[in-house]
């Protein structure tokens, strides 16, 4: 946790009330297939093809792959937030195809998402405060553990940002607000879809440190989508490499990055940012 002290994170993040209690996997996906229909021609495009994925409680899993390989589609479909796919998805042991609407609504806050574009992740017509108020109204029990000012403190934002609107926030600030909103729900899985690629280089490290710290203190599992191998290595235990909708290689980070078995993985490793960082380490 060297970054934590470096950036002066208050230590009370450790008092987060939830710890992983069961060993049910947070997310299990078997043979997921997701197809997009092209609006113009009506042809089907298979964005995710026969993907299986398992995230244990508190585990940190990365999905890497080139642009358009289906990472976002996979993450959205696997968490039941995006397009429906074929295949079996179990969220905390509940099969998504079998749960009722009310059960689903109760399950949903267990998964929270942080996106690449922080401004697009906030309703432009809502101030930070009223956005949080809405989340509290939606999930009163889940969110009562902390007040707004403390919550912002945990993502290292000053409480006077509460009355700002999204367009009055910098990219980094907005991303922290997004992380705070996710944190408020005390999720068991955080999906981070390239959470730093929309940000200035100087802010990227801060946001990553924050994510790492939240993981360490809350025990939430992490599904990280990234282009940046350095990020993946420093944050994740397991990596899945996607190519054209398929997972071509999966395994512990060290193994996959150290001795890649698949030709595409090798190519990707050579091309991706962070490869140089790897050799320096």
């Amino acid at each position: 946790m060297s970054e934590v002290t470096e950036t002066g994170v208050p230590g009370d993040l450790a008092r987060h009330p939830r710890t992983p209690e069961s060993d049910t996997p947070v997310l299990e996906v078997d043979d997921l297939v997701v197809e997009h229909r092209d609006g113009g021609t009506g042809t089907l495009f298979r964005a995710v093809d026969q993907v299986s994925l398992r995230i244990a409680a508190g585990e940190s899993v990365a999905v890497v792959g080139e642009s358009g390989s289906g990472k976002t589609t996979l993450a959205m479909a696997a968490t039941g937030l995006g397009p429906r796919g074929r295949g079996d998805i179990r969220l905390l042991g509940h099969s998504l195809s079998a749960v009722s609407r009310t059960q689903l609504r109760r399950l949903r806050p267990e998964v929270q998402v942080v996106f690449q574009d922080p401004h697009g992740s906030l309703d432009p017509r809502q101030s930070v405060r009223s956005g949080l108020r809405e989340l509290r109204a939606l999930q009163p029990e889940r969110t009562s553990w902390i007040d707004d000012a403390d919550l912002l403190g945990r993502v290292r934002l000053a409480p006077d940002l509460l009355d700002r609107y999204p367009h009055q926030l910098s990219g980094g600030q907005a991303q922290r607000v997004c992380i705070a909103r996710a944190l408020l729900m005390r999720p068991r899985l955080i999906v981070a879809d390239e959470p730093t690629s929309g940000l200035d280089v100087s802010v990227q490290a801060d946001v990553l440190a924050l994510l790492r710290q939240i993981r360490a203190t809350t025990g939430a599992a992490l599904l990280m989508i990234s282009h940046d191998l350095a990020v993946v290595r420093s944050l994740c235990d397991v990596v899945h490499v996607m190519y054209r909708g398929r997972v071509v290689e999966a395994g512990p980070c060290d193994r996959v990055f150290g001795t890649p078995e698949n030709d595409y993985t090798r190519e990707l490793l050579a091309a991706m940012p962070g490869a140089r960082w790897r050799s320096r380490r």
Partner: protein
Amino acid sequence: MKASTVRRVGGRLASLFASLLIALSLAFLLGRLSGDPTATILGPMAPPEQREALRHQLGLDLPVVVQYLDYLKGVFTGDLGQSLQFYQSNTSMIADRLPYTLQLVGAGMALALLVGVPLGVLAATREGTWWDRGASTLALLGQSVPVFWFGMMLVVLFAVKLGWLPAGQSGSPRHLILPALTMSVYPMAHIARLTRASMSDALAEPYIDSARARGISTRRVVWRHAFTNAMMPILTIVVLQTGILLSGAVAVEYVYSWPGLGQLALQAIQFRDFPLVQAIVVFGALVFVLLNLLVDVLHSIVDPRVR
């Protein structure tokens, strides 16, 4: 042709056909809801037996579904029924009036193009100047004025006060001047705005700058590149506006006592001659759908990707 193209064209045809069917059904429904036509024809005092006979003769005693299918069959074989008021075939009456409306619409549309396009080009090539503002305001004014009122004021000025031109009726080319001018106002404004918009979009494209940089003259750039870009929207609007005017020139025809379709529709409404109203609606719908189809065909010829 690629499979996707077939799909798209097929989808478009299906959508147009659905539109047509909706209009036909609406017209039929309104016809059924308009009360007992035998009362309109025979008067309220007619004996019941006589009415019953007429109902039978008109086919009104058949089940509604049968009536509907008969009606659809009639539409697709060109038989639009009989007028209650004129005791004539609706199809032949529409055919009689159509040439007058066509004349008016044709002349109006030609005028609209002749003035609207240059006005739009003027505004686009001098974007932000007073020329632009003037032309744009004029165009917006053309879309804001009740055109039939504009026609009335033309009558006051040129027929009543100055006595230069006839105030109404058809006959000589002189009779056509004022109605055609009136008719052209709205499409002219529309064409001007559209020309300006698509040309100034095109003029902002990077390839225009690069063409200029390569030393191609500004005039050539404007006409060869930017205007080509504006052609298709203009053509589209001309075709569609023609459809609108063909069926919707009621008020202008009324101002000038022009014996076209619009006047016929008005007469039919005033005399509650519902079969005739229905026939005109159906005719308008057919024309509209055909013109929409024409626009689609034009698009696929000009742009192989179709939009």
